């Protein structure tokens, strides 16, 4: 082992504590302040400190309840992933919240909007403190508060096709968290061009869908086209937005961990008015 790695292993072991899961299984736990000490002493990004601890069998305590849904090596893999999130409104706010808390190491996101009062019913990043402010700034502040290990790039503009191509190069996954139909086909094309799987979703009233589009596959954006859509009259209530974002994250986190995408070429369609969920084949 190289001396620096050896020193890191010794120091992280010294900072780790014995802990037990609620089911009694023992594990070595790295407290929050221990991670900060290691980052400072070794000049490493906190996300890399956490990933290296996981490599050595030490669980950063903030991810303790991710076990055993995600193994230690899968958690390290999440920390070493980069996800592109397009849109920081209803879907995007919840998606960002979940990906940060779950420990996705790098997130590149964009939204050119400011928060307005009609966002307050559902958009997690909107509040009396962030009204009239950019969604991107609110995202940066929120991410820093809930997980300082996440490196978030939040761009306060609407990306065009070329911006999407640039940001998607080398990314592991893209999340379509946009509102409306018009910009979704561009993201689907850009993700396909970059060879990046895309997890998309949309809602209208109590209905919505989530789908995974692998490069080259037909996606919902292809079938819907552009123009007016059902949410113009049915609105966007909080439960359907949060459900759709949650389903997107469950699928995205699995794909990042190397699990087979469960919704590739499919749409999971839900209707919270009668609580029906059905997976349909589209490709």
């Amino acid at each position, binding site marked *: 082992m190289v001396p620096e790695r050896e020193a890191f292993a010794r120091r992280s072991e010294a900072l780790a504590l014995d802990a037990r899961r609620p089911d009694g299984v023992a594990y070595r736990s790295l407290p929050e302040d221990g991670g900060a000490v290691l980052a400072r002493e070794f000049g490493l990004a906190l996300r890399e400190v956490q990933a290296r601890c996981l490599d050595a069998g030490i669980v950063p305590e903030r991810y303790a309840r991710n076990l055993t849904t995600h193994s230690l090596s899968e958690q390290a893999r999440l920390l070493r992933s980069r996800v592109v999130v397009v*849109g920081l*409104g*209803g*879907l*995007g706010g919840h998606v960002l919240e979940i990906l940060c808390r779950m420990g996705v190491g790098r997130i590149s996101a964009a939204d050119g909007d400011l928060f307005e009062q009609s966002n307050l019913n559902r958009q997690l990043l909107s509040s009396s403190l962030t009204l009239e402010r950019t969604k991107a700034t609110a995202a940066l502040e929120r991410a820093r508060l809930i997980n300082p290990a996440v490196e978030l790039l939040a761009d306060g503009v609407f990306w065009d096709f070329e911006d999407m191509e640039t940001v998607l190069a080398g990314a592991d996954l893209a999340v379509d*968290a*946009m*509102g*409306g*139909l018009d910009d*979704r086909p561009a993201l689907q094309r850009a993700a396909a061009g970059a060879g990046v799987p895309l997890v998309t*979703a*949309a*809602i*209208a*009233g109590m*209905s*919505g*869908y989530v789908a995974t589009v692998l490069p080259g596959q037909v996606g*919902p954006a292809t*079938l*819907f*086209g552009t*123009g*007016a*859509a*059902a*949410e113009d*009259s*049915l*609105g*966007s209530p909080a439960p359907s*937005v949060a459900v*759709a974002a949650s389903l997107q994250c469950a699928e995205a986190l699995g794909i990042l961990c190397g699990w087979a995408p469960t919704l590739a070429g499919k*749409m999971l*369609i839900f*209707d919270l*008015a009668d609580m*029906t969920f*059905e*997976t*349909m*084949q*589209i*490709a």
Partner: protein
Amino acid sequence: MIISVKCFATLAKFQPKDSDGFELGDGTSVAGLIEVLGIDPAEVKIIFLNGKHRAPEAIIAPGDRVGLFPAVGGG
């Protein structure tokens, strides 16, 4: 024949009351069903027949499940 019909989002108002036991003439296509329900065909963006995306010309068989989905883009 008896079929089941589920209309989503803005199409929900066209969903028949007896949606799980909807009576439809034998050999009717999905396009025919859309007309029977009084839906503007331009509003139907995705048709599901027994869980698979199909064209409006697809013929419905007894016991089939039809899902009609409009353009949905909210977030």
